């Protein structure tokens, strides 16, 4: 394993340790005040971060197979949460079978076998056409376009977009071969740090809401603080990537902005459905979809920036 991966993991480990110590001290100081609820949630989140990082680290260290399987499972769980909230009907049952058990695994199989051409068009072309066809064959025309569109949306966001994260591993970057896993780590670190920092800045300084009708938790103070500081962290990690420090800053800015966009769009969906979280699988965070909403939007854009500018 090259040293740079060790440094990245070492950094994550130190951050988590610091967060746990702060959480412990806060919990002791505010044992029975009104802030207890917030601190309990904070500590539950930190604990879940340890678990998520452990799973992530193990999968990445196993290599490409581990990463592909990890993201495949994440897509599956995210799609499950997404479709649960989508009022599909009996006529969609077989369509959903295709989506869950054929299209989803096949997309990750394409990542695994490095068939880029098919990876890029399988869902936008073939799945896009198959989904309405299968529903039409089932014969239920009630809200047909709405149902079809929602299933297609789930396929793109939960499967297609997420699959671009492990697809970073199949890019051929000159002078960087065998090191692509650091790009995946870079993406994950920037996206998640941006989320955490937006949460921290929002909770401490947040006053002016960006779109009050969509999310009361997203404030300009949180957005700017999160984007700026996460991007600076991205610039500080340039040595682990094929980017120059300035390019690392610019790319991190794009990642964090896309991440914010993903969070905002998913909030709009949740608001429309009248729920707070997509699920409850991760203690303190909600569902898988609540955790990877930013990744859904940033992964494909990051993937294409790297592919366009760095694969030669």
């Amino acid at each position: 394993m090259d040293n740079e991966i060790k440094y990245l993991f070492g950094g994550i480990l130190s951050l988590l340790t610091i967060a746990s110590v702060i959480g412990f001290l806060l919990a002791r100081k505010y044992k029975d005040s009104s802030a207890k609820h917030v601190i309990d949630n904070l500590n539950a989140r930190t604990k879940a971060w340890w678990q998520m990082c452990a799973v992530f680290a193990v999968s990445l260290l196993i290599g490409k197979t581990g990463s592909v399987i990890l993201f495949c499972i994440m897509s599956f769980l995210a799609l499950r949460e997404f479709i649960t909230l989508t009022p599909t009907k009996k006529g969609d049952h077989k369509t959903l079978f295709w989506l869950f058990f054929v299209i989803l695994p096949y997309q990750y199989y394409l990542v695994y076998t490095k068939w880029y051409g098919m990876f890029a068009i399988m869902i936008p072309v073939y799945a896009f056409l198959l989904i309405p066809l299968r529903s039409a064959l089932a014969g239920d025309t009630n809200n047909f376009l709405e149902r079809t569109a929602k299933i297609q949306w789930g396929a793109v966001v939960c499967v297609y977009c997420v699959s671009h994260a492990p697809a970073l591993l199949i890019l051929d970057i000159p002078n960087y071969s065998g090191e692509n896993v650091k790009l995946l780590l870079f993406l994950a670190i920037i996206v998640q740090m941006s989320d955490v920092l937006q949460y921290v800045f929002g909770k401490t300084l947040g006053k002016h809401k960006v779109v009050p009708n969509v999310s009361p938790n997203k404030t300009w103070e949180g957005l700017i603080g999160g984007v700026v500081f996460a991007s600076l962290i991205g610039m500080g990690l340039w040595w682990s990537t094929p980017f120059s420090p300035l390019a690392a800053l610019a790319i991190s800015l794009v990642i964090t902005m896309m991440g914010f966009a993903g969070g905002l769009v998913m909030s709009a969906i949740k608001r429309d459905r009248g729920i707070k979280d997509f699920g409850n699988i991760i203690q303190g965070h909600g569902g898988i979809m609540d955790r990877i909403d930013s990744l859904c939007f940033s992964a494909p854009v990051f993937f294409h920036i790297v592919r366009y500018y760095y694969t030669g």
Partner: protein
Amino acid sequence: MAGLIAKIILYFCRLISGVQVEIKDAELINGTLIFYGNHSSHLDSMVILSLLPKELREKTFIVGSKKYWQANAVRRYVSNRVFKTMLIDRSGEGNEAGAFAAISNMSNILSEGNCIIIFPEGTRSLDEGVSNFKGGIYHLAKKNNDVKLVPIFLENMNRIMPKGELIVIPLLGRAVFGNPIKLTEDEGKEEFLIRARNELAALGRNDLG
């Protein structure tokens, strides 16, 4: 062997239905009980069983249709050996003697301190709504007036495995255990059937769909 198979089946049901459980008051769920729920999928009885604590699960009988559970070798094995079941012959529907025998069989199970799972709508509905109850649950409650009835509302089961489909789509289900009810002394049949149904329907939330 049968015990292990039971565990595997129940674990699998729990996994694919991803059920999130909500219990209004867990303290009240004890003793001899009649669990009754809305019925929209063949998974229903197994999912309810998988949600019960071990000591309750071990003494709970599934009341099901003989035609369904005896249809093939696998189902025969599961209903005869793996789970405790009480099968009802529904072929002679409206047949008073048959209905009477079924009620008295269920009463025998209850009088030994066991619990049962029933679906008083009689058949699986195509959607989430709770249809009107058939009379059986009233006669059962009347004959066993010291037994509490626990409503269990199941959500999304019809989407996970709808009527007429063989393949399971692993969406996330929800189960809400309501507070137990009893037949009151001066309550008539219609009155009780409507009250029991409304108690169950009130556990569902209607913002989905």
